[in-house]
């Protein structure tokens, strides 16, 4: 959650706020970014704005979680501080909505949308707003209305479905909200969460210090430190209570499981909660309803986990294949149930880096969409060409060696256990036999819904699971450590060593940039350096099989662009060039930071360009903004004007689309 705010990052946050919430809040945010913690009076002075206006601006920022505020109990002065973390996340709003829709369905997306639009919301208001905007108010709250899973997947999800949509009850909305809280996408907001982490810490510190009126001595110091850390964590975890209450029913309960299986497709499962026994979860639900004073806001950390899953799937799709990526997606969905954020706090000792959460094959299978054709996507060599022992190799511990390069990573395999041969052989043969029979007629299966066909004459569930396992094994075998086969319980336990995997993903993004800028040769040289560490000038041409002159030119080019560094080691006191070793090296950290900052800068430039384009088309946009024109541009605008307006929309979507692609890069380099 902590990252360095560079000048470009700050500029970006300000621009994002201006784009969304207007001039005044962005101006105040800008001042908070540049001057640091300030009071209302200070803000007024620096911005030369009336205090009334400053308060207005701050109100917006507070509502949207964009500032921390803290009132000192001693002098009751309130200090405001910019929350750049939330400000940056504005850029991801669209992605998060999209992702929520894909994973949890239409209703979930709408709820998140509502909460996102107002920053934070009371449970009651969410329900009211939801019912007001989507669907007629249902009179009976008992949930007798029909389930929404009749809503076809293919429908345009952005359609204002109010006309056709079946009636929705308040209970259903509550149910959905409860589900989102259990998943962690929404989190209850407490006043403490609007204070900056430093403030919370210093307050706790002050409180605890009261027990030592004469100051700390010797051993007490360490004791005090750990007590502070614990209390801070306790405060942070307080918001988790509700999630924990809801979790048993919504994530792990029998209801949750049944729901998924009955529907086959998870995207539907969400809104189809009605067939469950209502009493079963009445308890937490009513709890939620009774406490409708609870404020909820979007938990970006959890959303990032979901976005990361999506990115990793794409990564697999790119590296291995489409079907395998689908299986990987199911695996990550199952796994992320146990993850609350992408980069766990190193101070938090509840997470053991040696034992990351695992999922079993059976769990993964529950999340596998029925439409995924697991029988394709992998080659089918004859059975005698398969080394089962090697494929089924189990690695209990994460790779220990934090290798220098991406190549080094997979050499260092921790303890490898060989499973019982005969046992596994059976499974494998089984899998391949299936393969032969179904491989041919796969192509013949038609009908828009694959599931139904399969039920009658297709492979059984066990066969599908076996084939799915093959995809997982393929992922585990890959040089890029997508998954680790960590155990054999329940047909195999799987885990992901995210830190190592994300590091490779980061390298991949850097490599893409390097290859694009300096060509394949440039990438070759950099990868050599990454694999070997520091290398003498003279050794490089032989390793890269390149002309000496070419190597020099590329190296200098890349050094100027900041991707490489050179260290001069004189062999004697004279320091003449001929008697000096030139050692090239690749500084991972520096390159990452630089690229990240360049990405911020590029994002800023895109947004600035958008402003300029808006200025160019000012007269047209001012017409479009009129309330009597909104929504019926085509009728109200003249032909030329409408075309021009269309042009602007085109440019806008290109620029914003690119900004979100740049954000993908930032996510990989910084947040995942």
């Amino acid at each position, binding site marked *: 959650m902590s990252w360095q705010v560079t000048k470009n990052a700050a500029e970006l946050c300000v621009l994002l706020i201006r784009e969304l919430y207007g001039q005044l809040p962005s101006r105040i945010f800008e001042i908070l970014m540049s001057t640091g913690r300030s009071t209302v009076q200070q803000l007024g002075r620096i911005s030369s704005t009336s205090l009334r206006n400053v308060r207005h601006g701050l109100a917006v920022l507070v509502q949207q979680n964009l500032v921390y505020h803290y009132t000192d109990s001693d002098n009751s002065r309130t200090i405001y501080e910019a929350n750049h973390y939330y400000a940056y996340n504005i850029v991801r709003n669209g992605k998060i909505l999209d992702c929520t829709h894909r994973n949890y369905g239409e209703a979930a997306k709408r709820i998140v949308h509502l909460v996102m639009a107002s920053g934070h919301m009371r449970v009651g208001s969410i329900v009211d707003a939801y019912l007001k905007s989507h669907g007629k108010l249902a009179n009976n709250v008992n949930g007798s209305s029909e389930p929404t899973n009749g809503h076809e997947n*293919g429908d345009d999800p952005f359609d204002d479905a109010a006309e056709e949509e079946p009636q929705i009850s308040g209970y259903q909305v509550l149910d959905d909200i409860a589900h989102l809280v259990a998943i962690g996408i929404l989190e209850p907001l407490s006043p403490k969460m609007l204070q900056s982490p430093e403030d919370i810490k210093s307050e706790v510190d002050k409180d605890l210090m009261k027990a030592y009126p004469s100051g700390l001595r010797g051993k007490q110091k360490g004791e005090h430190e750990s007590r502070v850390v614990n209390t801070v964590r306790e405060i942070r975890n307080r918001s988790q209570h509700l999630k924990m209450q809801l979790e048993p029913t919504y994530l792990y309960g029998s209801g949750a499981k049944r729901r998924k299986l009955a529907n086959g497709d998870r995207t539907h499962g969400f809104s189809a909660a009605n067939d469950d026994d209502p009493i079963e979860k009445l308890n937490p639900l009513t709890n939620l309803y009774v406490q409708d004073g609870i404020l909820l806001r979007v938990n970006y950390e959890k959303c990032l986990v979901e976005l990361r899953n999506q990115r990793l799937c794409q990564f697999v799709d790119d590296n291995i294949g489409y079907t395998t990526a689908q299986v990987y997606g199911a695996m990550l969905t199952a796994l992320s149930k146990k993850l609350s954020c992408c980069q766990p706090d190193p101070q938090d000792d509840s997470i053991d880096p040696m034992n990351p959460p695992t999922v079993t094959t059976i769990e993964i299978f529950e999340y596998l969409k029925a*439409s995924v054709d697991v029988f394709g996507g992998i080659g089918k060599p004859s059975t005698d060409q398969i080394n089962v022992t090697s494929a089924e190799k189990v690695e209990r511990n994460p790779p220990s060696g934090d290798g220098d390069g991406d190549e080094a990573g997979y050499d260092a395999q921790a303890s490898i256990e060989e499973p019982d041969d005969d046992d596994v052989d059976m499974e494998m043969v089984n899998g391949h036999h299936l393969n032969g029979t179904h491989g041919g007629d796969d192509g013949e299966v038609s009908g828009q819904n694959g599931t139904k066909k399969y039920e009658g004459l297709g492979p059984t569930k066990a066969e599908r699971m076996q084939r799915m396992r093959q995809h997982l094994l393929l992922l585990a075998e890959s040089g890029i450590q997508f998954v680790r086969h960590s155990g054999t319980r329940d047909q195999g336990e799987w885990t992901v060593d995210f830190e190592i995997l994300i590091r490779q993903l980061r390298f991949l993004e850097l490599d893409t940039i390097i290859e694009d800028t300096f060509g394949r040769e440039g990438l070759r040289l950099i990868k050599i350096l990454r694999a070997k560490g520091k290398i003498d000038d003279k050794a490089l041409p032989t390793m890269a099989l390149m002309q000496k002159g070419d190597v020099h030119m590329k190296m200098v080019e890349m050094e100027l662009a900041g991707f490489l560094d050179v260290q001069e080691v004189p062999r004697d006191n004279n320091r003449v060039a001929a008697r000096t070793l030139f050692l090239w090296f690749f500084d991972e950290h520096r390159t990452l930071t630089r690229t990240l900052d360049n*990405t911020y800068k590029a994002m800023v430039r895109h947004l600035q360009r958008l402003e300029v384009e808006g200025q160019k088309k000012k007269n047209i946009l001012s017409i479009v903004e009129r309330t009597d024109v909104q929504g019926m541009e085509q009728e109200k605008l003249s032909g030329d004007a409408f075309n021009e307006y269309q042009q602007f929309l085109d440019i806008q979507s290109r620029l914003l689309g690119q900004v979100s692609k740049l954000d993908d890069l930032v996510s990989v380099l910084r947040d995942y």
Partner: protein
Amino acid sequence: MDDKKELLKEQLYQACEENLEGPDETAYSRSFSQDDLQSLSICRELKIDLKTLMGLVQSLTNDRRFIPLQSATGPVWRLRPEEEANKYRGLEKDQVLVYSWIDNAGGEGIWQQTLRNKTGITQDQQFKNILKQLEAKRLITSFMSVQNASHKCWIKASIKPSIKATGGPWYADGDLDESFINILLNVVFDFIKDQGSYSTRGSGGAPKGASTSPVLPKKVLKGKESEVAIAARGKKRDADAITNDDESTPLKARRSNGQQRILLPMPAGYSNYITLAEITERIAAANITRGTKLKESDVKQLLDVLMYDGRIEEIKVGRRVGYRAVRISKHDPSNFVPGSVPAYDLPSNGLTEAPCGRCPVFELCEEGGPVWAGGCEYFDEWLA
């Protein structure tokens, strides 16, 4: 006395020759220390004392049959084969001097400049003459070192320059043969790809046009259903319409692309990935290296380069270390010409696509500066 000494000399030389080990090319590189010589059976049997021995050694050295060297433990001697030693006969004093330096330089050769300094022959004309005479006698020959392209080096005519001096099979006449290397890289890559992938007629691949990459709804920032977004939708399908294709297209796509060839990865544990030895063998069998035989170490160099290029990866199955191509399903086998640079879609990301990612004046770009986003011509071009 002289006869006896001659006889002893011959016996000593022969005894040393018998003590050489290994194949012919390397045998003569063994060096003998004083202790080694004294422990030879002949010295012990004939009870040759140290003084006589030194005399014999000196005499053999004068005959050029012994090469005196200095090692960390004291003086040592190396044998020079009889026929090599004979070449010194009939040479003049200066010629001997020059020739002995070249001879001792061995396969590495010796740079003309160094040679002149070492021999101390200062007159340019005289030095060149000597070299010319030796060359005429077919004793020495010149070549250009790979290490320093401008250095003219001399070597004995009877041996070939070492790999260090020529650069191995990758160099032709002192130049790096890049086209040769590139062809070989592609050939090796083809071998690896063919054996490590499964070629089939379109099934199970990603439907064309619908990838898992997130296509975001227009108007990301607002996150609202603004009028703008609704209007924009008229022209393009929106994100979810595209994403939802995933659900239905595998079957549809399979029908339409039914005849297209695609490559699939092999299952985990596939034990037939091509190995270093197999690749070397196949290159030799294909006879594409113009008579130069590539050793395994040479092929390994090629493989390393392919790995650094991110085109292949090493894969260990059991004890077998094989190689396979990465991103196999992204290769399009339909328009594939063996030995050519394969059709390969380069990955891209936000920064490489945006004008800023390839902007030459990105460092200068600043609001109010000489270059700024509003007046940027790269943006003009990109948005056009």
